[in-house]
């Protein structure tokens, strides 16, 4: 691994204040993810796994330490700058898909590009190509409520790829799917990894964790192993 890491956590800590009480959610977490890696983060609930996901996704700020995303130090960035970095560099895949019910499939995939200021025509062209790529060309004009769970997650994957991000963050991507569909979605993630995408997946499903190249284990707000 010679290239700069996509994610570089250096003694990252997150302390919450709850009614004058300080709660440490994450303590001195250091790890790196390099381009093309497929990494899973595993741990029981309350372990600090979710906090790591929020920090990785720039939805939350560390209270100590340093987080470099694709070479950029993000700790001091303001809200707009983090939004913009999130928009360009991170593709989210959620457990419950989080599609927008007022938009059709193409419209959903276009959302990240619209916040990036991609012109309309270009946006639609790229969205349609991505939808074709996840095998939903025949569903492009449908609303989310007309799709099955597996189809919705495939739309979400296409949406995560819209701005060609450096990092894909998946949060329990198969948690709301039956096993057959879950397998198809896992295969799709494997395929993305094979094509060179950098993926971090948060899960507590050991089977799913085993498919990734490396597993970072978290417990009680600290990384147990798999940091490097």
């Amino acid at each position, binding site marked *: 691994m010679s290239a700069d890491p996509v994610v570089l956590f250096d003694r990252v800590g997150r302390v919450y204040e709850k009614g004058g009480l300080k709660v440490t959610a994450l303590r001195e977490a250091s790890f790196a993810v390099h381009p093309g890696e497929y990494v899973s983060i595993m741990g029981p609930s309350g372990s600090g796994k979710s906090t790591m996901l929020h920090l990785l996704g720039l939805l939350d700020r560390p209270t100590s330490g340093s987080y470099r995303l694709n070479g950029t130090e993000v700790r001091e960035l303001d809200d707009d700058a983090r939004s913009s970095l999130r928009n360009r560099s991170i593709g*989210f895949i959620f457990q419950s898909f989080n599609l927008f019910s007022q938009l059709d499939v193409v419209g959903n995939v276009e959302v990240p590009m619209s916040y990036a200021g991609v012109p309309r025509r270009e946006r639609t062209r790229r969205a349609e190509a991505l939808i074709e790529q996840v095998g939903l060309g025949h569903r492009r004009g449908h609303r989310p409520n007309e799709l099955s769970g597996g189809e919705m997650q495939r739309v979400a994957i296409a949406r995560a790829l819209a701005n060609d991000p450096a990092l894909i963050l998946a949060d329990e991507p198969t948690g709301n799917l039956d096993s057959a569909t879950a397998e198809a979605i896992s295969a799709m993630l494997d395929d993305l990894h094979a094509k060179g995408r950098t993926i971090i997946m948060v899960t507590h499903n050991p089977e799913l964790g085993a498919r990734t190249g490396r597993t970072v284990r978290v417990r009680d707000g600290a990384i147990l192993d798999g940091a490097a």
Partner: protein
Amino acid sequence: MGPLETARLALRSLALQKVRALLTMLGVVIGVAAVIAMLSISEGAKLETLEQIRVLGVNNLRVRSVKPVITERKEEEASRENWIFEYGLRFAELARFQTLLPDVELVVPLRELRKDVWAGDRKTDITVVGTSSHLAEILNYRAQAGRFLTPSDEESLRRVCVLGSGARRKLFRFQPWQGEDVKVGEAWFRVVGVMEDKSAKASGGINLPDLNNQIYVPYATAMGVYGATSVKETTGNFEAVKVEVDEAILRIRSEDRIVPVGRSLRHMLTRAHPQGDFEVIVPLELLHQSQRTQRTFTIVMASIAALSLLVGGIGIMNIMLANVAERKKEIGTRRALGARKRDIRRQFLMESVLLSLIGGLLGIALGAGGARLIQLAAGWQTLVSPFAVVLAFAVATAAGAVFGTWPAIKAASVDPIVALREE
């Protein structure tokens, strides 16, 4: 995202819950509709007053004979003694107006003759008016063919008549009228001219006659032929009434003298007619009065508008706050996908503005339709002015923007990590 795209997204979001959106708009719809309907009624009334003044002439005053209230004793007297009820202006008085009030330029008498007008063997509803040659001049009323009455018609008591355009149509249709005679009561009059079409809208306060539906004969001839007494049969009673002049139109030398002349005239007439059987109408006063009413009306309307838009705006704010609470997941997801706070703020503000804007449009349509209905049902003239539409639209939209601000700020402050929360 540009404003157009934001608007499209907002429309789609609102379309997800159409009934809720419609109910939310209702306050604004009703408020705007009420304002539009009321404004168009008052606008119509103003137009009507102006129209009446225009037809009557701004420089003119009218004095009308008014039948005084008959006391019971008098009525008894009347039935016992075959009494002729006499009231109103005298012809001789009219000349005095001009000598006593130097600002009066012209006086034209009008005497409405209650006589049947015959077209062949058919009775018509045409009104016969005895008047002087100056009527045309004072009302700026021109003959379309032939001529109007002349002073020599009056002096020689000629039995001639001039037809209003509507009267000509009724009497002759497409036949030539030149050299023909018209039967008025028992007498015949030679037609010497036909007047131009003078449109006068249905009248409210001033009670304008329809000039087109009249036949004009020389005043002196009319008095000579028919006299001043007319008999009217009402529910089995014969009522004999003697009126010399039903109405006089006075032209005043300059516009700024109209109101003082009107005052002097009232003073003069009150002394000569203590029973109050007259009425002085000053068109300009009517205009001022209508403007005063208008002002009061406008203030009341503005208050209603402000109140209903306040209520409507609060309704929008309430629903938008509920929307924000329900759509936290959408907001968080949008933030996760890269929306900045201001993108979220714009999106939700746009929804509020669209709600009130569409509500405003619906209200304008409803108000204009309501005004139309009132016009059809009550016969009032109404006018939906562009000013009212623009005002209603602007105020409604502004209400949406004002009351949408807080929900939009709340939406923008939603913590993006809710996107990842499972419920």
